[in-house]
């Protein structure tokens, strides 16, 4: 029998990118918040610049709950389940994956909110890919702008604005929507190679700019500026210059006295009362079961776990899983098409040993609908990203571009000359939801507590593969302009697999028949259940999701404060 704890106003399941942000406006409004986190606190001393530990062994210093419940995946309902990963892409800890993520902190572009209406207007309804369940968001960028702004300043984002109040600044992204003010910090510094790439892009008429990062480019909020030591990629920051929620919004919420952080709390199910309202959550710590009653539950785990927890929480009112009476939980799933990179070999050292993946130069000319698709047969596009990021084991694993075998003296001669001469681009592409891409519970694989894990059934479709081929052409053109002597391309995409950029499963929209949560992130079916994370997003855009997730989380929390009396 679970031990029943004292009721609280709000319980947040997961104190990562989303839950860690939502806690702040709630606590500041005077609500009592309990944050349940499966991991523990990790601090700067835990973040050794150790490639083996961070990049190959999945952070053994952390609680490895996620590693025990890695989703299974297959391309489609008739294909076999693929090999299961051994390291979950996300991290359990206070601050979650914001501890070791790349920290690219993009706003979505205006088009991403209106994919359907804008595509119909410009190219006709037939251009919407067959089988896609894509919808316009229930609101536009203008609705989210104040929350983007709030998070950029509360968390701390460095970057160069491209559109302040409608005035284009050519140093920034001319394609971004209007923002009320610039970033709180200037962009991270450049390197000679990044400057070379910037010059190359300009020389072919493109509009390069430094990307935004939740990393301090100078001291901010009494925390250090970035040390550029080169271990930011899946590494935590040893000087707290990476603005994880563990060093920003969570401690600020704690300082109000209203947020209680409970670590090592492994949430298993959400409880439902007699009136189709949620009553709290069950969790396990070291084998002991607890029930935490709450007036409101905010589900803020990663996309796979958000869906899994809903499907596992069955009750009389919700026999198919919580908030799933319309059979929408798990639907409209997609993972960002961020693979299919282009790699290049240069005839000079790039001097990339020190830097970070959020330090780079972007091109948005081929993203979204920033270019005319009239003569093309797809919608959307990709953000081209060139960053400064290299570590020794990964460098030794570089492609030999067909110029050397993979081992032996010839390989050694090649690697000695070229270890610092290759670059692999990061191209994030518009990805749409489709009828037959979805999440559900795996019929066989279970976690150590006996609960089924999430199963991913999803593959990139024709539209995504066409964008991949198109943006690979652009990326190769850019590399060649900068002097690349060899270029390779990865395949354009098949099965989606398990991803760090996983969207949908609890999509947000006005129509309860096609969406799990309403425009403010609350369940259409259980009014005191809110859902945070990219699981509510219906489109990906061509940029990293985290800042959008955080802006949405702030908005949902603020809405909860405003509607508190009517909701509880």
């Amino acid at each position: 029998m679970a031990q029943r704890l004292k009721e609280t106003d709000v319980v947040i399941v997961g104190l990562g990118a989303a839950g860690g942000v939502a806690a702040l406006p709630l606590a500041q409004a005077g609500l009592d918040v309990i944050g349940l986190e499966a991991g523990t606190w990790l601090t700067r001393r835990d973040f050794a610049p150790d490639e083996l530990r961070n990049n190959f062994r999945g952070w053994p210093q952390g609680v490895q709950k996620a590693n025990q419940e890695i989703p299974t995946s297959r391309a489609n309902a008739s294909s076999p389940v693929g090999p299961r990963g051994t390291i979950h892409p996300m991290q359990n800890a206070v601050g979650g994956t914001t501890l070791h993520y790349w920290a690219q902190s993009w706003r979505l572009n205006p088009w991403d909110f209106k994919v359907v209406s804008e595509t119909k207007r410009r190219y006709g309804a037939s251009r919407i890919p067959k089988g896609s369940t894509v919808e316009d968001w229930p609101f536009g960028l203008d609705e989210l702008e104040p929350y983007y702004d709030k998070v950029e300043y509360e968390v701390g984002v460095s970057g160069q604005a491209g559109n302040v109040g409608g005035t284009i600044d050519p140093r920034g992204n001319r394609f971004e929507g209007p923002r009320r003010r610039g970033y709180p910090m200037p962009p991270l510094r450049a390197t000679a190679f990044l400057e070379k790439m910037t010059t190359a892009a300009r020389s072919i008429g493109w509009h390069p700019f430094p990307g935004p990062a939740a990393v301090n480019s100078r001291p901010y909020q009494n925390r250090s500026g970035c040390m550029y030591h080169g271990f930011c990629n899946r590494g935590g920051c040893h000087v707290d210059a990476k603005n994880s929620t563990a060093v920003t919004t969570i401690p600020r919420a704690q300082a109000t006295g209203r947020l209680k952080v409970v670590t090592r709390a492994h949430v298993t199910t959400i409880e439902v009362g007699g009136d189709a309202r949620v009553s709290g959550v069950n969790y396990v710590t070291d084998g002991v079961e607890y029930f935490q009653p709450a007036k409101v539950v905010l589900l803020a785990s990663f996309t796979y776990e958000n869906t899994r927890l809903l499907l596992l929480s069955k009750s009389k009112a919700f026999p198919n899983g919580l908030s799933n009476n319309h059979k929408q939980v798990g639907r409209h799933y997609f993972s960002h098409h961020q693979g299919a990179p282009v790699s290049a070999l240069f005839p000079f050292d790039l001097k990339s040993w020190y830097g970070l993946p959020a330090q780079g130069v972007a091109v948005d000319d081929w993203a979204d609908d920033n270019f005319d698709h009239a003569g093309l047969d797809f919608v959307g596009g990709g953000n081209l990203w060139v960053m400064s990021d290299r570590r020794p084991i990964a460098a030794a694993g570089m492609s030999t571009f067909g110029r050397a075998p993979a081992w032996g003296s010839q390989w050694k001669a090649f690697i000695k000359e070229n270890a610092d001469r290759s670059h692999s681009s990061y191209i994030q592409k518009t990805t749409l939801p489709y009828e037959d891409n979805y999440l559900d519970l795996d019929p066989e694989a279970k976690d150590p507590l006996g609960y089924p894990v999430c199963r991913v059934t999803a593959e990139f479709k024709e539209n995504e593969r066409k964008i991949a081929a198109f943006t690979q052409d652009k990326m190769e053109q850019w590399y060649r302009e900068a002097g690349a002597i060899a270029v390779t391309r990865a395949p354009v995409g098949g099965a989606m697999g398990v991803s760090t950029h996983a969207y949908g499963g609890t999509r947000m929209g006005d129509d309860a028949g096609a969406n799990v949560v309403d425009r403010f992130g609350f369940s259409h079916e259980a009014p005191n259940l809110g859902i945070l994370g990219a699981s509510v997003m219906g489109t990906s855009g061509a940029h990293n999701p985290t800042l959008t997730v955080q802006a949405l989380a702030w908005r949902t929390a603020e809405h909860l404060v405003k509607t508190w009396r009517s909701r509880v």
Partner: protein
Amino acid sequence: MTFISRRDLLMRAAAIGAVGRHLHIDPRHDVGDPERVALHEHAALAREPLEHLTAAEADALDAVVARLIPTDANGPGAAEARAVHYIDRALGGALASSRDAYSSGLAALDRYAQSSRGKPFAALAAADQDGVLADVESGKATGFAGGSAAFFALVLNHTRQGTFGDPYYGGNANFVGWDLLGYPGVRTMVTAADQQRLETNELKPNHKSAYDYDAFTKSSARSHDAQEGGSSWRRG
């Protein structure tokens, strides 16, 4: 001048005998201490006790890594990096799930070398060893559970880890792997001026392990709960 880390030295000293307790080693004076250099020369002849591999397995693996990343005109290779030492230690921790693959794979390697070239792998001439390894890499070599190509990929992956990983884990001895790549070393701060020196080839290798910095906890790096991942997630 050869650099050997304090930790490595203590490990070797312990392996050789009781001299370790008489050494008072200041990590700031790693290079040039006559007693240490003498010890290093002595230690280089000995192989400290294996923890997980058998002697025969270690002999075969020594021979394999020496062909994967050979010692040649471009300098030291996996042998000098002590990649096998890294693998042997890790087989009791993060790479424990690969222990059986090494036993059966190395045995299969010797069988295949014997049947195709007439001698166990370690006894073959270098050119024949390369021929055997090419067969193992392509999957053509017979007698490997799960196929020879998978075994080859496993060993190559771990050999790279043991050659280019942080020396804390027992490989990349004397930083030979990082020197081969031109990696200037683990730093906790790289200023704009440092980057400028890197751009102009003036930033010299510092030969430091992550755990030469007192700021970082080591407990987790030692953790035997650590599990090797199939691939490193690289996307942000």
